């Protein structure tokens, strides 16, 4: 199959998946025993049947479920995620505001995970069953076993409260105001506004939450890299390369790594899901104004439109990243396209 039709097919497969996600979210919001009306009208008004009926009609809660779903999807298609029950703001606006912070954190965490995980995994594979392998495997196991919210608390306590090496919570120093909104990414917006102090503050605020959030991914990537490089090292072409007298460094760098790292690409999709999950907890602790903290706050007060909207955006990001990984894998390894 050529590359174009491979990509087209992958993209087309995603569409029913996205529809399915909306259907599942809709179903989840229905199974809850609680009546959303209780969160819309005030307690006193809830005793007045007329007000309740009017609210039901206004929010479309009096329509049959299939019709509600249809309305939900057509609204979504128009970019309308409904109004939050509590702040009465359009959820779409909230999501636009909070999404960049989450992406920012996920990207830096992924970078940390790759920059630490790949070398650790390679070292582990090259020194298999010797002490560097043991150390690398131990670190990676700790990474995947760590309760991320606890690591965040301990990290803040040590590096902020005690040592004061790194800044505390939030995206910027408290004395700073956000740069004029262009992309929502403070690094980009700060550069556009010529405010290097904002860029610097934002980057330093990113270090600790990214390390905390990246710990799980680091563990995952280390394990994947190790097993993948080990596999490649047993291949005939590596033996051939050794046999023809190439230096060990050339063998590893030229043959083993390049092929060994291709499968690692696939784990990045998996990793991103883990990151988005971790972001829910990490953002809550670091007061990071992203989707994760938003969805937790909304869940706490059962603000369904907000919870469902944020969950949808997070799921769509996950699907899109996995699609990109699939396509990238197809580009790197033509055998996959068959």
């Amino acid at each position, binding site marked *: 199959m050529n590359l174009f039709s491979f990509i087209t097919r992958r993209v087309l497969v995603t569409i029913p998946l996205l529809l399915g996600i909306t259907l599942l979210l809709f179903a989840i919001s229905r199974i809850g025993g609680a009546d959303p009306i209780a969160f819309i009208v005030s307690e006193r008004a809830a005793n007045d049947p007329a007000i309740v009926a009017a609210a039901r009609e206004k929010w479309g809660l009096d329509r049959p479920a299939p019709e509600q779903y249809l309305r939900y999807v057509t609204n979504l298609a128009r970019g309308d995620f409904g109004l939050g029950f509590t702040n009465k703001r359009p959820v779409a606006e909230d999501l636009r505001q909070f999404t960049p912070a989450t992406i920012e954190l996920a990207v830096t965490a992924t970078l940390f995970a790759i920059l630490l995980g790949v070398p650790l995994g390679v070292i582990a594979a090259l020194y298999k069953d010797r002490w560097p392998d043991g150390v690398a495997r131990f670190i990676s196991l700790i990474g995947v076993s760590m309760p991320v919210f606890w690591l965040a608390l301990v990290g803040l306590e040590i590096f902020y409260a005690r040592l004061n090496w790194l800044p505390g919570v939030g995206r910027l120093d408290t004395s700073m105001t956000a740069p004029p909104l262009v992309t929502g990414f403070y690094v980009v917006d700060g550069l556009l506004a010529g405010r290097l102090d904002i860029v610097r503050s934002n980057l330093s605020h990113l270090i600790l939450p990214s390390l905390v959030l990246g710990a799980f991914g680091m563990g995952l990537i280390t394990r994947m890299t190790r097993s993948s490089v080990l596999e490649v090292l047993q291949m005939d072409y590596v033996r051939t390369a050794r046999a023809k007298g190439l230096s060990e460094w050339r063998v590893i760098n030229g043959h083993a790594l390049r092929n060994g790292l291709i499968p690692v690409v696939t784990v990045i999709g998996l990793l991103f899901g883990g990151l988005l999950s971790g972001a829910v907890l990490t953002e809550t602790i670091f007061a990071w104004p992203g989707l994760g903290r938003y969805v937790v706050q909304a869940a706490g007060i*059962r603000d369904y439109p907000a919870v*469902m909207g944020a*969950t949808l955006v997070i799921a769509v990001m996950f699907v899109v990243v996995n699609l990109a990984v699939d396509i990238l894998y197809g580009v790197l390894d033509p055998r996959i396209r068959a």
Partner: protein
Amino acid sequence: MATTTPTDVTPPVLPSAAMARPAGPSPMRRALRLLRRNKTAVAGLVILALWLVIAAVAPIIAPYDPLQDQNLKARLQPPSAQYPFGTDDLGRDVFKRVIHGARISIPAGIIVVLAAAAIGITYGAVAGYMGGWTDNILMRLTDLMLAFPLIVLALAIAAVLGPNLRNAAIAAIAVTWAEYARITRGQILAIKNQEYVGAANAVGVPNLRVMLRHILPNAQAPLLVKITTDIGAVILLIAGLSFLGLGDPPPSPEWGAMIALARPKFSAAWWTGTFPGLAILTVVMAFNFLGDGLRDAFDPRGQSHQ
């Protein structure tokens, strides 16, 4: 294909002797022997055994009543001989609470994963064995479940159902079963066309029996590895949900909830949050160590991949 009779339903336990091989010890027994030689796995087993003993004897060595155990005269005491893990802001013994927490988190993780595995294995077995459009439809649903980051979907479900441990466990089952379905289906597709399955069919063994006696035992290695590591992952997940206030409400000594409670005073009283966190870390690590060891032991190439 023949229809199945309900009398054939035997529980899909992991029968070690179900696959009688003519030569050599069974894969299960060989794996067990390899496991004993694997230092990581043994370490995992030892830590796990310790925790299970602690959970079992907690009520004996530390009689504990969440309501009466408060001692307001001994609030926020740092670790000492009397209070090895210190006390919290209500003067409760953190050590007692941590060991009682083991009675919540570990069984919750095991029950959730076993339930999810039972659902997923049945589901995947049906999909794989039936094939055709049944398989297609069933597998689209698992794709859908796997399209969500775990905790996000669990959060949405737990938020809708309401905050308590039971609902957190239901949410955890809901987000965990799909991978078992996918693995089981893959294994069944790989084995379905093997000669011995055809032979069993040919001599008139009903489908369900073929599935339970011949196919599933072959799928047990990857499933067992996954169950082990998943128990750790689910313990993390439930602790995370509890930390967010979607698990057991106070005064439950659930570890995630304890950390949430300790968070505002973490600087002043580090011990209130540090020890429950270490408890989660060691338990989850033990399951991961064991899972890693199992993976190595089952790997027929004898190599420590992954």
